[in-house]
């Protein structure tokens, strides 16, 4: 779009700031959880009606028709304010993927609803049998009279008990290659034949992840997202958007309160002032932890800036994702050590696991969800560092076209690719 016709960033920032001050409440200091979904939907509707939803998305699809620089300004101005961050996957992952690959009429129908919080979308990629090998999809899509019929099982979806639509990767042609016979479908979760069951996580708490069974689910032809048998490309872009949404860069900027993309202040200090020296070794670890968190915040800013100015591409989100995951584990460990035995044996009627122990117990979440650390390292080494792709014996000898690969990353001579897995959105 012509740059000259759009509002400049600083004018936008002023307008956004005025609106935010009047309409978004400050974050409560004790708030650790995302907003309740109903509340989040209401808040998102307000943001949409004020013209601040989908800031860098086209107007014809309900967006504001501005740029990622405007999005960055919005992210900065909403710091410390309540945002409907539980919707970051629906908007920042599925909304973005729909915009990139959906048929125009279908996008025009659904994207405004996604941006308004009327429809909550999720992704249905991983399967019980697949693990990180996400292209090993066994869910089948068979052509029917007015569209398709889907059968199979999906796993690790977040919010499935409350969401409205899913984007589901299915095998549409079993005679084509592993990657070349997949298609992406939009399916209403209320459709007949969809059964949703919760997965209780290792903390024993309320389910954050779900499993879906699809039994003869009928899907109209226009629900195909992207081309027939072009589903792998759609899935790859979806996963890129997911990494960006988790780490708060690109369209994901400012969708989450914890977004690292554009924070302006230092990470909170790790010690209360004037507390006593407990253990010098532990103290050093705690300060080192603070340093590492600060470094990661700055890494987020660097990668966010690099993407915005076009110096680096979307695959760099994997660097930040890996850093976030690695840092999360290290940080949880140090905090558990600092909390000591009282975090694991406590005298109280309260059955809730003390936060340091709970964080430790669940600290592998981001190193598995959104593509394991190992998959991120594959992406970094292959797409950023252009190192040879992993061989995969289930794909040997196929031409790149057959696996739906576009040679956009340069080094696609080898047909195989260990594609990233989706393990749901890992939001708790």
């Amino acid at each position: 779009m012509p740059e000259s016709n759009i509002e400049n960033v600083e004018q936008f920032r002023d307008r956004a700031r005025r609106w935010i001050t009047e309409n978004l409440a400050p974050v409560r200091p004790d708030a650790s959880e995302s907003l309740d979904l109903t509340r989040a939907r209401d808040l998102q509707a307000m943001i949409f009606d004020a013209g601040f939803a989908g800031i860098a998305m086209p107007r014809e699809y309900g967006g504001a028709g501005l740029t990622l620089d405007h999005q960055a300004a919005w992210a900065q101005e909403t710091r410390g304010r309540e945002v409907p961050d539980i919707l970051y996957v629906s908007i920042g992952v599925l909304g973005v993927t729909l915009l990139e690959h959906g048929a125009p009429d279908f996008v025009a129908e659904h994207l405004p609803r996604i941006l308004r919080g009327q429809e909550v979308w999720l992704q249905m990629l991983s399967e019980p049998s697949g693990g990180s090998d996400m292209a090993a999809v066994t869910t089948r899509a068979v052509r029917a009279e007015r569209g398709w019929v889907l059968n199979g099982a999906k796993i690790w979806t977040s919010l499935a008990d409350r969401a409205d639509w899913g984007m589901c990767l299915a095998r549409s042609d079993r005679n084509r290659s592993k990657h070349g016979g997949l298609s992406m479908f939009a399916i209403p979760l209320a459709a007949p034949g969809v059964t949703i069951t919760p997965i209780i996580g290792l903390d024993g708490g309320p389910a954050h992840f779900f499993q879906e069974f699809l039994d003869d689910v009928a899907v109209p032809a226009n629900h195909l997202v992207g081309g027939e048998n072009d589903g792998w490309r759609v899935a790859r872009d979806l996963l890129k958007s997911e990494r960006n949404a988790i780490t708060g860069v690109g369209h994901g900027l400012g969708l989450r309160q914890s977004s690292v993309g554009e924070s302006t202040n230092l990470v909170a200090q790790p010690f209360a002032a004037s507390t006593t020296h407990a253990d010098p070794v532990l103290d050093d670890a705690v300060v080192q932890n603070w340093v590492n968190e600060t470094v990661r915040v700055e890494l987020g800013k660097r990668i966010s800036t690099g993407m915005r100015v076009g110096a680096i591409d979307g695959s760099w989100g994997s660097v930040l994702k890996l850093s976030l995951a690695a840092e999360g584990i290290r940080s949880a460990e140090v905090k558990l050590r600092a909390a000591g035995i009282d975090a694991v044996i406590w005298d109280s009627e309260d059955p809730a696991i003390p936060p340091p122990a709970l964080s430790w117990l669940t600290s592998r979440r981001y190193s598995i969800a959104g593509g394991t650390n190992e998959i991120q390292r594959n992406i970094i080494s292959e797409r950023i560092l252009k190192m040879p792709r992993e061989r995969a014996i289930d794909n040997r000898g196929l031409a790149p076209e057959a696996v739906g690969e576009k040679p956009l990353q340069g080094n696609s001579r080898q047909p195989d690719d260990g594609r990233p897995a989706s393990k749901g959105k890992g939001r708790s």
Partner: protein
Amino acid sequence: MNFELTDDQELFRQTARRYLAKLTPMGPTPIGSEGPFVIDREAWRAAAELGWTAMFAPESAGGGSLSGRPVSDLAIIAEEFGRQLGVGPLIPVNIAIRALAGDPQRHGSTLSELVSGTTLATWAVAESAERWSPDSVTLRATPVGTEIELTGTKRYVESALDADIFVVVARTGSGLTQVVVPASVGGVRTTRSKSLDLRREFGTVTLDHVRVPLTSTVGALGDAQPAVQQLFHIASVLQCAESVGVIDRMFEMTRQYMDDRVAFGRPLAAFQVLKHRAADLLMSLESAKAITDAAIAALDSGSAEAPALADAAQSYVSDLAPSFVQECLQIHGGIGYTWEHQLHLFLRRATVNRMLLGSPEQRRQALETRFRGWAPEGSLAHA
């Protein structure tokens, strides 16, 4: 190193890179070349003409910043220094210039000589290995009539043998004073130290009842504490930038080697275990660039977060760089273990930088003191 260099800064970087490549070619180091290491004055004057000494100096002395963000400008050179293992007192001279720029009326002519590269200066601050901070300065500077008398010892002074003048951090009463002391004045004795870094030299400077005119001081007597703190932070982040240059270059070399070296019928780059290690190296390299740039930007903008960010940068980068180079050495295998290969030269510089200006452990102690609100008045950690 950041994604938003101005066109001028980019040109500055490229010019520096070309000049450094000419100045310090990366051939094998002859055995026995461990010094003494003498700075090539002609080469340094040429470097000065390229602007390496200009950033912190006032325009009246021939200086001026490229972008209005002098730390950022100079960090570009520091990073290139690291990439090419540059020789010459880049950080010491610029810290001396920054110190004297606080009192241009008194030190205008010295500043001009430093900017033109005809005079070499270095910053003499540390006295013991344990603490690099203004608090630990004990070298006395006592006014005697129209003169000031200095007695004490400074250690780990970079380019001490080559320097024409020392900017000495001294204690006057309870405060600090910076004093310009010519190397040639009576009572100054300089001894050469050995250094792991084969391209850089350090020395110990002993001042025994050295007398210089009172006008040799920078600013008022006993007022230098804030300036010294600031200089520490600036020197630290410039050193971080240099170390970032070291590991940036190492990463490039190692990545290239992984393509070139074939084992078991395929290049090293095709082994997943090595691909994953390369991915981790890239992550930490980018992290080092990010925190260094953040500290530089904070110092240039005068942000209140600058001291904490500078300490964070030094803690992170100083810890990272030597182990990063060791990991690159491991990926190179046997060739990386040889004297003939240049890799050890980078390991040496990264290792010296880890200790110089205070270890990561000391920086974290400074941060902890800051967090706990135990700040002794005017301590380095609380600038």
